[in-house]
């Protein structure tokens, strides 16, 4: 009896503990995802969503953070952009950078990766990887000095080389016809290596079985590349495409800033550099905020278009 009683006495609290433990377990289990994601949500909220919200708010004011008078100006900061020829020029520059740099940053490294893939086991592979990737890690300030010496019209390397072929002096950075292309070359040089490494890593991850099976079926290298390898690296391709579209304006900012500061005559500026000038050189916080809102909306739209129309061609395996 005693044993039974003891057993019963012990069983009752044991059942209670189990129920409570189960509730705790359910609670912890339910809360775990939120707890795990909370730090990220916090950081994103502080550094992304809050600035975004606050920029939108500031775009309706004429204020510099310091003056006590913060004047509500409605849509003035937006309508003013429509009247500003420099904003139109910045949009034009943005379009040229998009058209020129997206293929260079997305397709050129893809082509290079496919060319370099067959020699991935060669002894020279470390050299070419370092050679192609090093611009990505070189600081803009350091790279700029090199490029400024290359493009210097009077004693620069490029003009000296061209002079050997009878080409007359070109003002690479101060001629409006050449400056933007010079900036594009330098921006491409800086970002090419990173995407190349991503593509090479993706190619490395393609299962060898598929390739072997295709080879047994008589597929040649070209067919294997385009029908096996490329479809299997489309997730990486899509990632590179989306991130390039988002970041191309910022990628080119460094090149503009160190080489031309938007000149000559504003011919190399883009929307991000225009935003920088408004906010940090002219201290026009409202106008800069309006530009940032427009830029954000355009980026969201472009990203949506890519997910809507390009993602369907991606093979996630």
């Amino acid at each position, binding site marked *: 009896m005693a044993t039974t009683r003891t057993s019963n006495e012990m069983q009752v609290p044991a059942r209670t503990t189990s129920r409570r433990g189960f509730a705790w377990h359910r609670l912890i289990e339910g809360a775990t995802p939120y707890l795990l994601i909370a730090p990220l949500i*916090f950081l994103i909220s502080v550094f992304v969503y809050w600035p975004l*919200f606050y920029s939108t708010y500031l775009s309706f004011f004429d204020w510099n953070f310091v003056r006590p008078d913060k004047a509500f100006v409605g849509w003035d900061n937006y309508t*003013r952009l429509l009247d500003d020829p420099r904003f139109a020029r910045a949009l034009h520059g943005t379009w040229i950078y998009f058209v020129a740099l997206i293929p260079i940053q997305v397709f050129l490294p893809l082509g290079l990766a496919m060319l370099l893939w067959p020699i991935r086991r060669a002894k020279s592979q470390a050299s070419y990887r370092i050679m192609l990737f090093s611009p990505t890690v070189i600081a803009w300030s350091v790279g700029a000095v090199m490029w400024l010496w290359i493009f210097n019209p009077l004693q620069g390397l490029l003009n000296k080389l061209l002079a050997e072929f009878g080409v007359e002096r070109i*003002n690479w950075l101060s001629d409006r016809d050449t400056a933007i292309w010079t900036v594009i070359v330098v921006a491409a040089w800086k970002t090419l290596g990173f995407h190349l490494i991503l593509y090479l890593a993706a190619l490395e991850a393609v299962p060898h079985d598929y390739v072997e099976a295709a080879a047994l079926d008589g597929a040649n290298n070209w067919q294997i590349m385009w029908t096996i390898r490329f479809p299997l690296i489309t997730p990486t391709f899509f990632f590179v495409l989306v991130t390039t579209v988002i970041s191309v304006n910022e990628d080119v900012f460094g090149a503009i800033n160190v080489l031309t500061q938007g000149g000559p*005559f504003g011919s190399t500026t883009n929307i991000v550099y225009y935003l920088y000038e*408004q906010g940090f050189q002219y201290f*026009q916080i409202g106008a800069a905020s309006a530009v940032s809102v427009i830029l954000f909306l355009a980026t969201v739209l472009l990203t949506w278009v890519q997910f809507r129309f390009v993602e369907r061609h991606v093979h996630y395996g």
Partner: protein
Amino acid sequence: MSKMTRRKFASTAAATGAAVAAGSAAASAASSRFAAPAVIRAQDAPVEVVFYNIWGTPPGGEEPETKHPVDQVIDAFNEQSTDVKVLGQNPAGGYFEVLQKAQADLAAGNPPALVITPWSNIFYAYEGLGAVPLEEVAGDEFDATFGNLKEQVLPLVQVDGHTIGLPYAFSCPVIYYNNDIIGEAGVDPETMFSTWTSFLEQGPAVQEAVDGNPVIGFGTNLDWPAQSIIQSNDGFVLNDALEPVMNSPESIAAMQMIADFDSAGLYDRSTTSETRASFLAGSIPCWVGSIASLGGLRNNATFDLQTSTFPTFGDKARRMSSGGSFIGMYAREEEQQQAAWEFLKFALSEEGYALWMQTGYLNASTWDLPTLEGQEAAYTQLDEGLSRESAWPTGRGGELQIIWGEYVARIWANDISAEDGCNEAVEEVNAIIESQG
């Protein structure tokens, strides 16, 4: 495990975001107040004041063996002051970056007491950033202290009758030239640089000595020398009412002169950093820059470096503009303001100013201090009278300066005619001024 639905996720994220946003908003509201929070310090500790400038060693930079004169001034002050300690800081890069940092600190309620401020931003400093009129801080000491400035210098830092800074980095543009090349060309520099016309006439002879390269490059923001060139032909960029008037016949003719240099292949269209490199490499014989560049050029030039005053337009008087920066006071607390004033007094004392004069900037004081070899041209221009660098009106003054600078570049490179360029500039600048009420 409970299922994470989109709704659950969204509501949690929104709640977190809202909380963070609310918290940040409160923090922001607190930080956007004009006054600085009280500084907590020990009662007998010296008052520390921050002085943002562009010359000290930037963050992460290596201290040079010989400190920059501005740091020498600060060290000398700190050695003899027991009540005040000045912390000289170069927060980042050039004038604009320093002003950005100051603005951010002001917005955060943590104003730097003193900030080196470009002359062209004088109105923004006063109206936009609340630079403190020094008369209000100095009281009776103001006249005695500023009496140590040359008479013509004080008006350069005054807005609406208020003195809003100590003229410090005081400069003007001069022509630097490579005397070896000029000598090789068989040209007398004094004759060549006497008038713009004689420069244009003798330029081709010098050009031959540099294998057909351009003869003159500009190494500063172009609107600055353009102002001096226009004024020397009896024109103006802005009138006394701060309206743009650079489309007068005199101004247009002055602008056309440099465009004529370009037509003759004598003007170097390269960027400012490129022209400097070309000059030091001996590829171009003449370079327009601030007199403050003298030390740097002398250290790097491997040729006989000389300076000249700007040419004139015939018999007309040369009217150069000053440039550089002043030390503006942005401290909001009285204790900070008084401590900063103590440093300004020292900076303008004979001891402090003598240390500063090692830089190559012009002597704006009445102290009889030695000049550097090569500064003679700049002092000649100073004695002739320097006007203030164009201080562009309204809160969009910085933008107006860039707009005009862009037109100058286009006119000089014959991308637009002088007449059209000047007229369009006036139109564009006026439209912005009017939009600002």
